[in-house]
C-alpha cells in the first residue's frame, strides 16, 4: 500500500528582487527533499529558522506550489487531483500554525471561525448541527465547558487556549494528516507538555498522522518518541530515521551541535556542557549556499572533500545521514561537547 504522504525530490525556489538594473535573486528554500510518512505516523521535522522546514509544511498542505519535485498523497500526485479527489486532499491535510493569534480572525467569535470550515466541507448541513459538532470538539481538546468559549473572541483567550482551538479547527475536518508548525513555541514551557500530550492522544485515538515542525529537539523527542525525525539544514535533510535511534546516536555534526544547544532542566548536566561544537554561529545565505556540503564552513570535522562534493543521504545502521565523514566523527555523548 502506498504511504500516506510521499515527498519526491521536493523543491522550492523563491525568486525575488530584480529590477531594471538589478539581478533577480533566487533563493532555494527547499532543495530536493525526499521523505515519506505512513498513516498514523508522527514525524518531527527539526531545524533552525531559514532551513526550509516551514516551506516544506506549506507545500504539503498546498499553501505553496513546489517549483520542482512531487508530493504524493495516498499515492497520487496532488497536482493531478481534481474535483472530489482534490477536496478530499484539502480536507484530509490540515495545518496548525505557530502564531495562534494571527491564525484566527480577531473580529469573529470562535463559533463563527470554527463553523465555517465544517459547513464549507459539508460535514454538517445546518448551523445547529455544526454547533453541536463544535461543542464535542472543544471538549475533546480540553476547552470545557464549551459554551464558555464559543462566543468569545480570540483576544479573550490565552495562548495555550488558542492553540487548542487551532487543533480543534484542524480536527473538525477529520483529517488524516496534521502539519503542526511550531505549535508550542509561543506558549509557556509549563504548558507545552499538555499540548503535546493532546496531539499524541489525537494521534492514537483517531490515527491521525502528524508532521511536527520545530527547532526544539526536546519537544520533538517528546511527541515523536515512537515516530521518526528528519533534521534539516538549509534546504536539505541531513539526517533522518527512527527518532529514538537518531537521538541515541546522532551522526551528523549539525545534529550534534543542535543537541548540545538545547538547555537541560538539570544544573549538573547543563553546567557541564561546554562551547558548542561549531565553528560559527551564522547560517549560510540560502541564496548563495556554500559549495559541497552546506554545513562545511561551520563544521569542526570538515575536510577537503566536504568543500567539493555534496554528500547524499546514506544508511548508517538504520538511520540515514548526509555526511562524508559520518563514519569517522566522534560518537555523541552527553558530556562530550566540552572536550570537542
Amino acid at each position, binding site marked *: 500500500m502506498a504511504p500516506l504522504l510521499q515527498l519526491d525530490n521536493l523543491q522550492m525556489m523563491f525568486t525575488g528582487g530584480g529590477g531594471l538594473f538589478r539581478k533577480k535573486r533566487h533563493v532555494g528554500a527547499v532543495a530536493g527533499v525526499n521523505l515519506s510518512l505512513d498513516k498514523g505516523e508522527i514525524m518531527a521535522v527539526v531545524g533552525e529558522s531559514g532551513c526550509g522546514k516551514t516551506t516544506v509544511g506549506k507545500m504539503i498542505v498546498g499553501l505553496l506550489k513546489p517549483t520542482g519535485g512531487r508530493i504524493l498523497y495516498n499515492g497520487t500526485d496532488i497536482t493531478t487531483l481534481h474535483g472530489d479527489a482534490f477536496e478530499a486532499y484539502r480536507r484530509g491535510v490540515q495545518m496548525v500554525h505557530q502564531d495562534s493569534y494571527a491564525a484566527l480572525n480577531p473580529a469573529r467569535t470562535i463559533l463563527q471561525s470554527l463553523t465555517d470550515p465544517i459547513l464549507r466541507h459539508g460535514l454538517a448541513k445546518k448551523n445547529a448541527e455544526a454547533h453541536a459538532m463544535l461543542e464535542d470538539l472543544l471538549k475533546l481538546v480540553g476547552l470545557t465547558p464549551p459554551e464558555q468559549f464559543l462566543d468569545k473572541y480570540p483576544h479573550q483567550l490565552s495562548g495555550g487556549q488558542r492553540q487548542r482551538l487551532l487543533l480543534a479547527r484542524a480536527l473538525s475536518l477529520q483529517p488524516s494528516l496534521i502539519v503542526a508548525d511550531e505549535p508550542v513555541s509561543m506558549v509557556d514551557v*509549563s504548558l507545552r507538555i499538555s499540548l503535546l500530550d493532546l496531539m499524541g492522544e489525537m494521534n492514537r485515538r483517531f490515527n491521525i498522522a502528524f508532521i511536527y515542525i520545530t527547532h526544539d529537539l*526536546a519537544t520533538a523527542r*517528546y511527541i515523536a518518541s515512537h515516530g521518526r525525525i528528519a533534521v534539516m539544514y538549509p534546504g536539505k535533510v541531513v539526517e533522518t530515521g527512527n527518532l529514538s535511534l537518531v537521538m541515541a546516536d546522532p551522526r551528523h555534526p549539525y545534529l550534534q551541535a543542535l543537541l548540545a*544547544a538545547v538547555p*537541560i532542566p538539570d544544573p549538573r548536566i547543563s553546567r557541564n556542557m561546554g*562551547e558548542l561544537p*561549531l565553528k560559527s554561529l551564522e547560517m549560510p545565505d540560502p541564496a548563495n549556499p556554500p559549495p559541497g556540503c552546506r554545513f562545511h564552513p561551520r563544521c569542526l570535522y570538515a575536510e577537503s572533500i566536504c568543500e567539493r562534493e555534496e554528500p547524499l543521504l546514506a544508511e548508517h545502521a538504520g538511520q540515514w545521514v548526509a555526511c562524508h565523514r559520518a563514519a569517522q566523527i566522534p560518537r555523541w555523548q552527553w558530556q562530550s561537547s566540552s572536550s570537542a
Partner: protein
Amino acid sequence: MATSNNKDAILQAQDVTVDFKLPSRTLRAVDHVSLDVYRGEILGVVGESGSGKSTLATAMLNIVSAPGVISSGQILFKGQNVLAFSDEDLREFRWRDVAMVFQAAQNSLNPVLKIKAQVLDTAEAHGNQSPDAVLKKARELLRYVRLEPDQVLDSYPHQLSGGMKQRTIMALSLLLDPEILILDEPTTALDVITQAYVMNIFKRAHIDLEITMVFLTHDVSIMAKIADRIAVMYAGQIVELGTVDNIFYTPFHAYTKGLINAAPSLTDDVSKRRAIPGSPPDLTNLPEGCRFAPRCKLVEEGGCKGEYKGELVEVEPGHYTTCVEWKKMRGY
C-alpha cells in the same frame, strides 16, 4: 523582611505591590513581593506568563506602565529609595546604574535609524561623552559579543538577523557600564543554537565585567544553566526562593516541582514528564489562601489544606518557601 540578610544587597524590592486599575476592578500583578538582588550574582526569576515577573522588573526601575501603579513598598538601590528619585536622578539610575533588556528586544531597535545613530542617541540622553569616545566603546562591545562592529554600526535593524539584533541590544545595554542588567526573556524569540550562544555571552559578560544580572524567563531549563539563585513567581507572589540546586534538587513548593517536571528535556525518560493541571488563577478574582492550591497535588491528595501564611519562610539557610506543608515535598 523574609529575604534580607547580611549579604550585599545592591537592589532591593521591599513589600512591593503593583496594581492595575481597570474600569471595573483592580488587577494586582505583583502582591507584596520582597526580593534582594545581591551584588555579583545572577538571579533568575521564573514564572508563567502573567505571574508578574516583568511587572516586578519594571517596578524595580520605576517604569511601571499606566494604568499600573506601585501601591505599596519601596525599591532600594544601594539603600536609596528609587521611588523618591527626581527625574534627573532617575535618568542617571536607568541604563547607567541598572540597564534593562526588554522582551522581544529585537523590536526595541528603531527601524528607521542606523545602529550608529541609536548608539549616539543613547549616550547623549544619558551623559555628555564625546561621540568618538562613545563609538569607540560601542565598537569594543560589539566585538565583545562577536559581531563585526563597522558592519553593524552602519546597518539598519532589518539588515541584521534575530541573533545579531539580540547581541546588538546586549552590547548597547552595556554601553554605559551599568552595575545591574535586567534581562526579560532575552532569548525567547531565538533559535536554540543562537540561544545557547547568547547565553554564553551573558555568562561571560557577567564574569568579565562583574555585572549583576536579573534574568526573567518562563523556561526553567535556561535557569539551570545560568542562574545562581532562583525566585519562583506564581500569580503575583514569590512562592519559593533558593539556590539553583535548592530549586532543582530539593524544591519545597509543589509549583516549583511542577514547573521542572513539565519542562521537556533531552536526557529524561519522556514518560516522566507531567503537565501542571489547570491554569493560573484570574488575578482580578483570586482564591483565598494558597493561590496554587486548586492545582496542587498535595492539596488534592489531602496532604494540605491550602493555607497561606502571607510570607516566605526560611526553611534552610537561604532557601525560602510559602508552602506550609513544605516538609511533605521531600522525596515527592
